[in-house]
């Protein structure tokens, strides 16, 4: 079923940087009613003024209640899209990772999507909305240097699978898995110079694709090596034309 971004009520988490920030701009340009969730104060975001914003750390227990409250304050009676994009990682030796880092990654990447979705279910169900989970193509792989991150995204993917079975006639469930993307995600995770960075997709490219996928309702999208090569080639050809 074709869906429309224009005039849709959309809640997007992690819209203050990287893919999320680009997606916020993309969706807003397409005419969405947008609520962005992030942890920084509004003044420290680059969000255009016309986009509603609420600052809350998604690793806290109270985040669901606050988001539900904010949505109700905005007068929204239903939700067309709920996009879980906020995420963080850790790169380094497994036994050096702090407890806090392990907890934060699981809380933000997995528990937050679980409990926020749980709380917003009635709003999503009202007009057969779409739940969109931003995972990673790392899911399912063996990644000793970022084991907890990959495990969180593998669990998120399992959530998408079973929720799709449970919500068959009620709510669409979409799983979008970006591949390596040029954002500050890697630096924040403790990886200063990621290898093969020249092949990484740009967050604008990923955001544009996500904007498109939301409308098509495609169940799952993986930005594989082939996508990376395809987008790298497009960039290269564009340069040649200039």
């Amino acid at each position, binding site marked *: 079923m074709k869906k429309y971004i224009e005039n849709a009520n959309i809640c997007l988490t992690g819209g203050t940087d990287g893919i999320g920030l680009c997606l916020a701009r993309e969706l807003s340009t397409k005419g969405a009613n947008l609520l962005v969730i992030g942890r920084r104060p509004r003044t420290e975001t680059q969000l255009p003024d016309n986009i509603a914003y609420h600052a809350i750390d998604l690793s806290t*227990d109270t985040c*669901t209640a606050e988001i539900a409250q904010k949505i109700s304050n905005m007068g929204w009676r239903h939700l067309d899209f709920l996009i879980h994009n906020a995420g963080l990682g850790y790169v380094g*030796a*497994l*036994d*050096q*990772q702090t*407890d806090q880092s*392990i*907890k934060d990654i*699981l809380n933000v990447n*997995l*528990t937050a999507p*679980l*409990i926020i*979705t*749980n*709380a917003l*279910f*009635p709003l999503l169900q009202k007009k057969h909305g779409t739940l969109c989970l931003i995972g990673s193509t790392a*899911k*399912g*792989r*063996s*990644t*000793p240097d*970022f*084991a*907890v991150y*990959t*495990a*969180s995204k*593998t*669990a*998120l*993917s*399992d*959530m998408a*699978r*079973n*929720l*799709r*079975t*449970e*919500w*068959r006639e009620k709510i669409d469930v979409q799983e979008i898995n970006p591949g390596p993307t040029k954002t500050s995600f890697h630096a924040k995770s403790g990886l200063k110079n990621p290898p093969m960075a020249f092949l990484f997709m740009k967050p604008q490219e990923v955001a544009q694709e996500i904007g498109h996928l939301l409308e098509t309702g495609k169940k799952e999208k993986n930005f594989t090596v082939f996508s990376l090569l395809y987008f790298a080639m497009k960039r290269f050809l564009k340069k040649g034309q200039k």
Partner: protein
Amino acid sequence: MSVIITGAASGLGAALTNEFLEKQQKVIGLDRFWPEVSEESESLTKPEQGNLIKIAADLANHETFPALIETLTNHEPVEALIHNAAISATGPFEAIPASSHQQLIDVNFTAPLLLTKRLIATGALKKGSSIVFIASLSVHVGYPGALSYAASKAGLANYAKSLRKALKKDGIHVMTVYPGPMKTAQASRHAPNDAKEESRMPPQNAAQAILTAMKKKKSSFIPGTTNKVFALAGKAAPSLLDKAMRKIIYDKLEKPVYENKIENENKTPNQ
């Protein structure tokens, strides 16, 4: 030889504990409810009873882990660490309160990761030892009606995969077990109404098979032939299995069954 087992007081954990005890091995058993350990007892451990050391530990309470690790590292380094403890929550995803989903992730997923990291960092595991993660067949076949449970197990199984590679150089073996339905109290609390008791595997049989698989240093293990067939089918045709699981399980769940720390009650069908 000695082994740490979480969730050792009941179900598969108790069966595993018995298997090790029968082989004259020492078991350091962790559980929330050890009938004999009173909550007021000052130290975590009770004097040794034979070869079983019972430690009361609530895996949802991560603040207690530093003390717990200290207790565990007071003993000799162990030859095996078995992450068996888990809670479940069954019913439509939206019918289970958010705090129950959260508690489940804390116990089934976050706790084993925190404990593993600390035990490795403190050298509590001998060279040549095994770390065993009890996941679930759900990872291969899907499990609508137990959403956060299935997600926690999928995450755990994947973590084990990365850990295996990371610990290879230290000579530590990592195995993931994917049990299907077992004849335990927990499983029957969460099973669909028409589920046949006799078609579920006795935990003793699963425990014996797991010990053999550990000895063979397998990296993954599915107890039982039927379960192995299901897992293969699940890998070959996941969407077919999803449809089947919806019919076999989800559509037949009578009412939600879950734990809730906040409501502070243990919801079971008999209450």
